[in-house]
């Protein structure tokens, strides 16, 4: 029994007593459950489990703090309309915004931020962190920190491009199907059903094994696999729009299909499509990361988060967390985007009623 464990339980029990005194039932339940769980876990796993819980709690508290201050910051600097929206934003959403902005900055200014190049060998392999290399070196002696920064640019850039292509194709085809109708609609619908009935990772593996793993092929293959999902969405959204009277009016005016799609349907379908873009980006991002992890995505020496995890995975068996950092970077980005999308969906649903 050392001071840490005594302090740990004293904190938890004290906090639950305070919560109970102020009649905050839910906070009390949360803290007291944590205390009970810690008893059990501490008995099984010993002190290290309690340390992990403490670190996790500290991280959550820190991110909540960041989210809170960032929201206040945005409320102050944004013009009136934006500030009004931000004031109602949940902490998760402002945390998501904060993370995404940091990532975008890292991606855009990668060469300025990273101390070394992404393929530059600067130390011995698996060198421990020192004041030159913040996170140590990878299996070939390249600086991990620089590679993570460049990875933001490569992985995010590739996913963004892929999602954009999938969106372009999916939206054009979906709206074309909705506006034209008839056999084209039927045909595309059935085609999409078939493509979607093959799991995306499996289909990607099949196509990549055939066409090779060059970068442009990777982009085209993944864009092709995700086009059906965008098609479904845009077809459904546009399907609700084309029955409106103003579309009928435009048709009677004699407008062409292209005008109908870009001028009449698209502006009204924007909101759900934009919200969905975030989600689709997450899926594409995860698929790219997964493929790179399997060694079939972005090829070395280009830095990429998925392949970095794979290359340094052996370090995990020595209790090092370095290989987990790129994986955590992937998770953090997708979680943040999901938080933002959740909020956007809530906003658009809330405005309706």
């Amino acid at each position: 029994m050392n001071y840490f464990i005594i302090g740990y339980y004293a904190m938890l029990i004290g906090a639950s007593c305070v919560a109970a005194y102020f009649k905050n039932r839910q906070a009390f339940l949360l803290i007291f459950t944590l205390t009970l769980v810690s008893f059990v876990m501490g008995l099984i796993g010993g002190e290290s489990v309690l340390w992990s819980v403490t670190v996790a709690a500290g991280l959550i508290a820190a991110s909540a703090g960041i989210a809170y201050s960032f929201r206040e910051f945005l409320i102050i600097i944004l013009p009136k309309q934006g500030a009004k929206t931000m004031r109602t934003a949940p902490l998760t959403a402002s945390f998501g915004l904060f993370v995404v902005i940091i990532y975008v900055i890292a991606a855009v200014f990668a060469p300025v931020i990273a101390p070394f190049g992404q393929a530059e060998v600067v130390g011995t392999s698996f060198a421990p962190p020192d004041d030159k290399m913040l996170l140590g070196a990878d299996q070939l002696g390249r600086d991990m920190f620089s590679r993570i920064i460049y990875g933001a640019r490569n992985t995010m850039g590739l996913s963004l491009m892929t999602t954009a292509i999938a969106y372009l194709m999916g939206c054009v085809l979906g709206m074309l199907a909705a506006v034209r109708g008839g056999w084209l609609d039927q045909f595309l619908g059935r085609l999409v059903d078939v493509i979607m009935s093959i799991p995306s990772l499996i289909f990607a593996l099949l196509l990549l094994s055939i066409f090779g793993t060059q970068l442009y092929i990777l982009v085209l293959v993944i864009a092709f696999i995700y086009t059906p999902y965008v098609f479904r969405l845009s077809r459904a959204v546009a399907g609700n729009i084309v029955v409106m009277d103003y579309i009928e009016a435009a048709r009677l005016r004699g407008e062409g299909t292209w005008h109908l799609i870009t001028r009449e349907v698209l502006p009204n379908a924007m909101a759900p499509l934009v919200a969905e873009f975030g989600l689709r980006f997450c899926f594409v991002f995860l698929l790219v990361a997964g493929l790179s992890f399997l060694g079939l995505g972005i090829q070395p020496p280009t830095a990429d988060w998925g392949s970095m995890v794979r290359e340094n995975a052996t370090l995990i068996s020595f209790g090092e967390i370095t290989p987990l950092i790129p994986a955590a970077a992937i998770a953090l980005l997708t979680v943040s985007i999901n938080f933002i999308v959740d909020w956007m969906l809530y906003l658009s649903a809330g405005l309706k009623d």
Partner: protein
Amino acid sequence: MKDVFGIVAKRLGLGLVTLLIVSIIIFGAVEMLPGDLAQAVLGQSATPETVEAMRKELGLDRPAPVRYLDWLKGAVTGDFGTSLANKRPVAEQIGPRFANTLFLAAYAAVIAVPLSIGLGIMAALYRNSVFDRVANVATLTSISSPEFFVGYILVLFLAVLNPLFPSISSLSEDMTLAQKLERTFLPALTLVLVVTAHMMRMTRAAIINLLASPYIEMARLKGVPNWRVITHHALPNAWAPVINVVALNLAYLITGVVLVEVVFVYPGIGQLLVDSVTARDFPVVQASCLIFASTFIILNLLADVGAILTNPRLRHPK
């Protein structure tokens, strides 16, 4: 009742057609190789004679539709041809590995299904409470994380820092079930964490959707206790969405299993697929893709059929 069978039969027929088209896509994809299979395998430096001999050996001199029919006939009877890498029958390599993958998926499903349905119903009942919010953030995090991240975190905490379970799940023939369960605990737990998150969110959404219906409000208004509202009014109608959720997520397990198998070096079909993609061993790739795709399609089919069969409106038509 007759209507239901009609709908189910139609759905099954549609599923069969989808399977056929998917098999054509998988076969046809390899036909789209630059040059042809023999050239792709032998590479640029091969002499025309060796390429010609290889073509003969693989039967590439016959037209594609004939070869497709042969391949399909073989696939239906469990014969997937011979591997290019080691000249052994593909079925021989895939058989035991497919059994291992099914074992892992079943292990994960047995834990995940009851857990996530229970948690999902609880989250729906106590929605907007602390429990629901914590569950929301936790499941969102788990869904957004790549499977290998979850897997490696478990390895770090449960195998390296606290050596409770083995980090590599190699299996051998003479293991008892208990040993197998212990060996595969970490990959199964990884899958459970990812799938539970999905399933729980979907169950929660389905139940909340249901609890908003007027007949639930009616039951509440006439003073039925809360648990009885759930068991007698909500659950009979909730089966359809819940069965749908379960089947969809089991289908999702099929894809998740590939990454997890690679993380834990588990001797399953996903690992085999990845290895053969790297080695460009096309017969194995085709066979594994076909197996994955058919499992996926069949599970989706089961989801639809389950939803049709449990729909009270279809079972008791007016």
